């Protein structure tokens, strides 16, 4: 399979991100699939910033260890990544700025510094030169990048556009002139179905709009902030009301107020902000208010490592909120699942009138992947909100907000409906919503709420999807969330080595149908738990629910995502 990894690095604060994304856009417009991963420090300036893009003619889900083309805008980029070079790697750098002693790969000097000086450009524009050079080396069509420049700088006018094109040419032509022998046919234009390129956060944001979420409140917190800023930026088109509130507690309660009043509402945050919302989640639980909470994890505890990745909040999310009440936790594993599960999350929140948490992590939230545009458009076009038992007018008799029912779900009347009124209540309550401290209604309401879980398990829980065949597998991976990408890619590698594997991919994290799960985990197989955390939290959750303990595990907790090669190595030990 063709898999090419392009990587660029430079000082933080100099537009590496934009450059990386532009590169990815060229790739999809040229007919390729991409997956990217970026690293940046929790500083505005002064640290190191990298961006790597996988290019493939097949769908691709994760990056790889070997770098095929490394573009170094500073020395650190080289130093930090030289261990990832092979004899096929090409390194682009400015030999006037620093020297590279090592050999065993292709070194291409481009005089970035003198070009910068000659053309009086800022450091940030050097990226454009480097991008031009990259395109040349990979047989990219410069016209495609021109289109991107035109779109991006439309507002800034012709002059800016022309200047950017010129910078692109500079790099492009330098390669053509000096290193034509190193040019590889990686981005040769192909006719393919149109693609989109987006991150997990983009997918959540888009899906929220599609789900007819009309109110989003948040307080910025990496790596969830771009949901807030995207949704805020789209307001004039989408007509969503987006509010950056004073703190996460306000956020949560405002969202609950809006949801009560009848609009689909959501919020997003990371662990620290989520910690401030858990009281509200408990409130949503007892008052039976629909809400979708997007939780994008980063390494904790506390402030932790804000711009890195981890899956360290799972058990906290599952057990979030004091007291006992039902909630649903979903975890998409890739962009497509983020679309599907976000749409589903809004439906579930309405159907079951409870909090639904959609979990992500920095790796999934901020890595771009290409998806087929038509698939997504169809998904959107065919989606129509299911608002469950929401009604516009009260029926016969006294309206009872918390009416005892077999499925645990009561009719929910839109506030303002004439001829009725009711209260939702954070206290335990009787059917009409009034406070009670009596034993009998307490038990009734606890049981009613619990039945919603059973109804969900019967109607909407989805068993984990299995990639590969468990029966014939030598190793069976068990995992969740963004690890899906590296695992799928590792399976391909192992397959090529003649090793059969299967992957049990959980998306419907909590609650779970224990008999289904028990069944799938009880074969006489080598199960390997893979998690991006130290405690093996999903493994613990599986044990809690089924009693099964998975003995082998690959746990990574240094803030970096799991690489497919690490999985392969694990299997081969």
């Amino acid at each position, binding site marked *: 399979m063709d898999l090419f990894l392009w990587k660029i690095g430079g000082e933080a604060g100099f537009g590496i991100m934009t450059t990386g994304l532009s590169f990815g856009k060229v790739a999809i417009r040229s007919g390729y699939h991409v997956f990217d991963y970026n690293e940046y420090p929790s500083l505005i300036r002064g640290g190191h910033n990298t961006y790597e893009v996988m290019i493939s003619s097949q769908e691709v889900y994760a990056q790889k260890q070997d770098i095929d083309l490394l573009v170094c805008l500073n020395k650190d980029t080289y130093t930090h990544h030289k261990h990832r070079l092979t004899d096929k790697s090409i390194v682009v750098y400015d030999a006037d700025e620093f020297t590279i002693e090592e050999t065993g790969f292709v070194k291409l000097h481009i005089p970035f510094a003198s070009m910068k000086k000659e053309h009086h450009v800022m450091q940030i524009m050097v990226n454009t030169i480097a991008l031009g050079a990259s395109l040349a080396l990979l047989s990219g069509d410069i016209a495609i990048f021109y289109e991107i420049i035109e779109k991006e700088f439309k507002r800034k006018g012709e002059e800016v556009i022309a200047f950017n094109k010129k910078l692109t040419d500079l790099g492009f032509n330098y390669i053509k002139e000096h290193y034509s022998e190193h040019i590889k046919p990686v981005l040769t234009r192909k006719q393919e179905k149109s693609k989109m390129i987006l991150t997990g956060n983009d997918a959540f944001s*888009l899906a929220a709009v599609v789900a007819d979420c009309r109110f989003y409140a948040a307080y910025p917190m990496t790596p969830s902030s771009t949901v807030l800023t995207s949704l805020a930026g789209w307001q004039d088109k*989408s*007509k969503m009301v987006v509010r950056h509130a004073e703190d996460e507690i306000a956020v949560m*309660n405002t969202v609950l*107020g*809006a949801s009560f009043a009848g609009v689909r509402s959501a919020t997003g945050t990371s662990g620290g902000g989520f910690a401030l919302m858990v009281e509200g989640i408990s409130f949503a639980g007892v008052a039976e208010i629909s809400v979708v909470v997007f939780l994008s994890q980063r390494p904790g505890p506390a402030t932790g490592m804000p711009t890195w990745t981890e899956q360290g909040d799972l058990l906290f999310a599952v057990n979030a909120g004091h007291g006992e009440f039902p909630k649903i936790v979903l975890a998409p594993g890739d962009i497509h699942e983020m679309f599907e599960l976000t749409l589903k999350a809004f439906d579930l929140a309405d159907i079951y009138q409870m909090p639904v948490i959609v979990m992500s992590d920095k790796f999934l939230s901020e890595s771009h992947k290409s998806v087929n545009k038509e698939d997504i458009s169809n998904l959107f076009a065919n989606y129509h909100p299911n608002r469950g038992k929401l009604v516009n007018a009260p029926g016969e008799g006294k309206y009872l907000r918390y009416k005892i029912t077999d499925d645990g779900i009561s009719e929910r009347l839109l506030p*303002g409906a004439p001829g009725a009124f009711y209260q939702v209540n954070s206290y335990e309550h009787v059917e009409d919503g009034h406070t009670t401290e009596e034993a009998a209604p307490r038990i009734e309401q606890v049981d009613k709420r619990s039945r919603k879980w059973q109804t969900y398990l019967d109607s909407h829980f989805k068993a984990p999807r299995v990639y590969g065949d468990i029966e014939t597998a030598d190793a069976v991976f068990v995992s969740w969330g963004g690890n899906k990408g590296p695992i799928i890619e590792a399976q391909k590698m192992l397959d090529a080595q003649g090793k059969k594997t299967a992957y049990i991919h959980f998306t419907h994290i909590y609650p779970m149908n224990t008999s289904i799960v028990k069944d799938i985990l009880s074969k006489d197989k080598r199960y390997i738990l893979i998690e991006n955390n130290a405690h093996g939290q999903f493994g613990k959750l599986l044990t809690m629910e089924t009693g099964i303990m998975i003995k082998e595990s690959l746990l990574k907790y240094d803030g970096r995502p799991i690489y497919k090669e690490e999985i392969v190595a694990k299997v081969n030990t």
Partner: protein
Amino acid sequence: MATQKDFSGYTGTWCPGCGDWGIGVAIKSAFVQMGMDPSSVGVVFDIGCSGNMNDVLNAYAIHGLHGRSVPTAVGMKLAHHKMPVVVIGGDGGLYGEGGNHFLHASRGNHDITLIAHDNSVYGLTTGQVAPDAQKGYKSKSTPQGMIEVSLNPLALALTQGASFVAQGFAGDVTALIELIKKAIHHKGFSLVNVLQPCVTFNKVNTYQYYMQRIYTLDHSYDRTNYKLALEKTQEFNEEKYPIGILYQSDRPAYHEQIAHLPQDSSLRERPAFRDFGLLIDDFV
């Protein structure tokens, strides 16, 4: 038209003589006199003796978390701004636990009405000090007297942007009804700080105490004068309590300033957005 009875749920559980009785009557009367009915008004109750009005007052209501009634009400308003939204809570919840929301909702001029039960104590948790008590106030949690100076809710709201700042007295229901009506009628953030004797736990700020120290702002008082209002808010340092509207301005409410919110319907009632192509374009 709805009557007091339509608004009346269960009987209150307040102590005999508690100021909350009077406030409860005033709220219901105001609702009735404004031609509202329980289906046309949204109420968010905080947690406290004050919030226990939830069982007494019929409305589309949320009995939410302690200290969080204000942001809850903000959400309710933004989602469906056609409905008036009233917050009923105590000084512990609104000014203590929820101080940050009070402050920022003032800035936002959200069109909600706060009826703050100023009894200087945490009634429901049996008498610890509330932040607007007087310096030196002795309570279960401050047996040596509160060290902090009083929180000044009127000054806080005023300096942070509230467009309607008023003070009422639970012992004068007639005047309170008028204040509440004006507050609800006002478009924007309206605070009615109600001096409320807690007969069980507060032996200082009694009916007697207030009766001797309140005075009504008369017609000569110019409530559009911000500076004057600011001065009025300082009087409580001398234990003087002006009753009436200290300040009112007509700056637009938060929801009126959201360009893409249909003012004549509401966020909830507008048609769904389905033109997804507009957004997909960013990602190709």
